[in-house]
């Protein structure tokens, strides 16, 4: 990430020689978008973390995630109960298309994995979230319907196949590369 960050900034600064006036506003605009994103992020968080704390204090979380937890112990190679439960909740919410609800659980699982130094699980959880497991592409269907599509929802099948194939590939590549790196040396970072 450090390399990408430096490369983009230096290249952009070089290109900005043609139009130096646009450089600063673009940066400020980026920061403004970040602030706006964080405000909406907090709104989602206040709701879902508030609710999940209530559920946790009532002892509901333990029950709900118990079913998926054995699988998560295995997938993420972890022994941490809380981490596995959070990861299970993250994956479930993602698949149901509740993206906002998935994020807090994902971060909680991430922190727990970091605490037990489980780099493998951190990477895998990121790969699963960044390659987007989504069963119903609601945004796209709504957009097609509003633009007068004859059958707005017929995008469902190709989108499902495509997203499933990509998630599968991403996980497969990650697993293969992780193994390769850790077999040969620990230099791959």
């Amino acid at each position, binding site marked *: 990430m450090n390399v990408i960050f430096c490369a*983009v900034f230096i290249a952009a600064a070089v290109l900005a020689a043609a139009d130096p006036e646009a450089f600063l506003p673009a940066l400020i605009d980026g920061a403004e978008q970040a602030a706006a994103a964080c405000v909406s992020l907090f709104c989602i968080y206040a709701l879902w973390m508030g*609710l999940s704390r209530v559920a946790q204090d009532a002892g509901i979380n333990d029950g709900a995630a118990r079913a998926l937890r054995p699988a998560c112990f295995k997938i993420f190679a972890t022994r941490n109960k809380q981490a596995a439960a959070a990861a299970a909740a993250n994956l479930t919410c993602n698949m149901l298309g509740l993206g906002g609800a998935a994020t807090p659980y994902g971060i909680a699982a991430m922190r727990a994995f970091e605490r037990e130094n489980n780099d493998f699980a951190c990477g895998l959880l990121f790969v699963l979230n960044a390659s987007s497991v989504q069963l119903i592409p609601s945004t796209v269907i709504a957009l097609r319907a509003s633009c007068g599509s004859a059958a707005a929802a017929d995008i469902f099948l190709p989108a499902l196949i495509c997203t499933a194939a990509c998630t599968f590939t991403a996980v497969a590549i990650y697993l293969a*590369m992780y193994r390769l790196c850790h077999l040969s040396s620990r230099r*791959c970072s």
Partner: protein
Amino acid sequence: MSLVIPALFIIIFTVAAAKKVNVFSSFCAGAGDGLKFTLSVLPVIAAVFMMCAIAQASGIADAATAALAPAMRALGIPEELAKLAIIKPFSGSGSLSLLTETVKEYGADSYISRCACTLYASSETVFYVYALYFAGGNKKGRALPLAAVAFSSALAAVLACLLCRVM
């Protein structure tokens, strides 16, 4: 689908109240954790968003599109989609407006907009997710998952076109 969330509230609040949990103070404690977390990711997201904004404003994104267009064409990806495929990992709102333009211009049922929709639905704003999930930790070993996701996003573009041609 939209009934799930109200139902969740009813179940959780009733069970919690029945177990004599102080629902209000639990909720506030949770929301407080949310605030702490948001503040901790804000700097990272600010840096990443600045990078994305500068990549678009300086024309790096356009240059990359132009450079990759011949390769994309060879794989059967129209130029309009090349742009979407490149912007999607950087900016959610940017790619959504691009998608809306494409669908309006070519018509919702055309080959190009079907491809664009499939591509949009099957990829994520990778850099945002990256910032969010890896914020705080400055350990090594983050390049590997990023590379795996980058490859699968490229695959999504090719696959989206193939699937739309067949289906």
